[in-house]
């Protein structure tokens, strides 16, 4: 496993309902990332299809693995790179049951996936109308490190990040489709999730506008002490390279040892009280 890796934060404005165009962009940026020495290219939530799809989502969702994932596998193998991106997943066990999923592909093919656990259904969001929530945290031990996957609104729920961290993740990737009115929340919460878990957090948001929602971009790499180590432009497409040094986790863990100080017995109380809200 590498101790230092380079990330490419691929902040794109996905073209709605045009998987071919988005896959072309994925490939172009993956090859660019490879040329510039990156190990992992990260694309936003639902960047394969666009985010605001309403009922058209049923036409666009695919199984994972499936045709689009296979295409990503092809250029990930060619580039020798890992790639993470978001898409609507159609379960193979039913005809119209969908998940909002983050997919990880590597040079050897499909690595794994994470199905979003917290589906926003308030304000402008209607995810529970279409998606079934996921139940499993995701952490993958790869050649480039132990990587956890999360998606967007999950960031409001510390346990979704704590779980992959406890499973061994040292870099948690949060892909997102966050509109501008939520910017200040995400800027704080991404730092908080990194600090409390003493791990790296890569946040990659959509840019551009869909159905009046302006995605604010602002993708970033947050270090294990909460420092924003790299940041993409607000609102527009951007491509940012940044470095992760897993050796820094040791320093962070000794400075504020949250992993050491965890109190498992509190989680029982948390479960009990949360059931009684």
């Amino acid at each position: 496993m590498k101790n230092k890796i380079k990330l490419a934060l691929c902040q794109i404005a996905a073209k709605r309902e045009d998987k071919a165009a988005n896959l072309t962009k994925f490939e172009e940026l993956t090859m660019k990332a490879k040329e510039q020495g990156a190990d992992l290219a990260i694309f936003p939530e639902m960047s394969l299809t666009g985010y605001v799809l309403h009922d058209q989502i049923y036409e666009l969702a695919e199984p994972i693995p499936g045709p689009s994932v296979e295409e990503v596998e092809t250029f990930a193998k060619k580039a020798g790179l890992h790639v993470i991106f978001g898409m609507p997943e159609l379960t193979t066990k039913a005809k119209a049951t969908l998940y909002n999923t983050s997919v990880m592909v590597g040079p050897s093919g499909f690595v794994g996936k994470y199905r979003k656990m917290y589906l926003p259904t308030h304000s402008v969001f209607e995810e529970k109308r279409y998606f079934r929530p996921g139940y499993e945290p995701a952490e993958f031990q790869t050649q480039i490190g132990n990587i956890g996957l999360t998606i967007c609104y999950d960031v409001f729920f510390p346990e979704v990040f704590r779980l992959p961290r406890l499973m061994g993740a040292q870099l948690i990737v949060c892909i997102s489709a966050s509109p501008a009115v939520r910017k200040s929340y995400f800027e704080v919460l991404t730092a908080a999730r990194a600090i409390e878990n003493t791990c790296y957090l890569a946040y990659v948001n959509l840019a551009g506008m869909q159905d009046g929602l302006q995605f604010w971009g602002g993708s970033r790499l947050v270090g294990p002490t909460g420092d924003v180590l790299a940041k993409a432009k607000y609102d527009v497409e951007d491509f940012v390279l940044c470095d992760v040094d897993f050796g820094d986790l040791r320093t962070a863990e000794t400075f504020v040892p949250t992993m050491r100080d965890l109190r498992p017995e509190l989680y029982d109380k948390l479960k009990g009280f949360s059931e009684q809200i």
Partner: protein
Amino acid sequence: MKLTPSVLDIDFSEAETRICRFIKEYVEKAGASGIVMGLSGGVDSSTIAALASRSVGGDKVKALLMPEKETFSQKDIDDAKTIAKQFQLQTQLCDMTEVLEAFYRGIPAFEPADRICKGNIKARTRMIYLYYYANQQKCIVCGTSDKSETMMGYFTKWGDAAADIAPIIDLYKTQVRKLALHLGIPKELALKPSTPSLWPNQLAESELEIKYETLDLILFGLERFMETKEIAEQLGIELAVVERVKDRLLATEHKRRLPLGPKLGFRTVGNDLRLPRHNY
């Protein structure tokens, strides 16, 4: 699912009951004194005339007949009068010719050869008449849009689709024709070819380039998330025809919604500021 004409069969007695209850309750809860509607002599407005009359009584339904010189048809006027008499509606003849000609003269960029832009003025002028009478008489405007036209975006934005209620908006055109027959509307009128009357000899099916019998089955399939290929195979028609209908459905969504604005605030009108309709 097998796409045959029978999929569009519904219980028209129940549909009548539900629609009439809807109209009656809406008018009562709005505190309105009645209904204003446009009556063209076509199947949609004739059907609304019958339903409105049965809901609140013909004496509380003001039907405006709004002919104008270019598209004038004595047959349509006679048909509208037949319906008004059958369902005992109050009628008002409003010849729009002078108002329209004033618009044509008054718009510096007016181009008479552009029949769509010109035709839309007619549809929007009808809306102005309807709302004038509704405001003056404390009535609501009852729209006559059906599901086929609405899904296809085959209407004038802020024109014929502008109304307070749309009682037959969830019925396809072929269903409206059957409901019309069920309501006792003469067969000749129930099956009369539809026209928006924006220019002379305009016919909906010619302009849409498809028969409503086929269109409604395509739309029915799309409504139920069927794939275009499957719809085309089942109906024995070219895939391109189904794709064209679908493309038009998707392309006209902007006509069916409030205007789009950028999300800036906590809750946004037309997006996530969602309130119950007061009293309804």
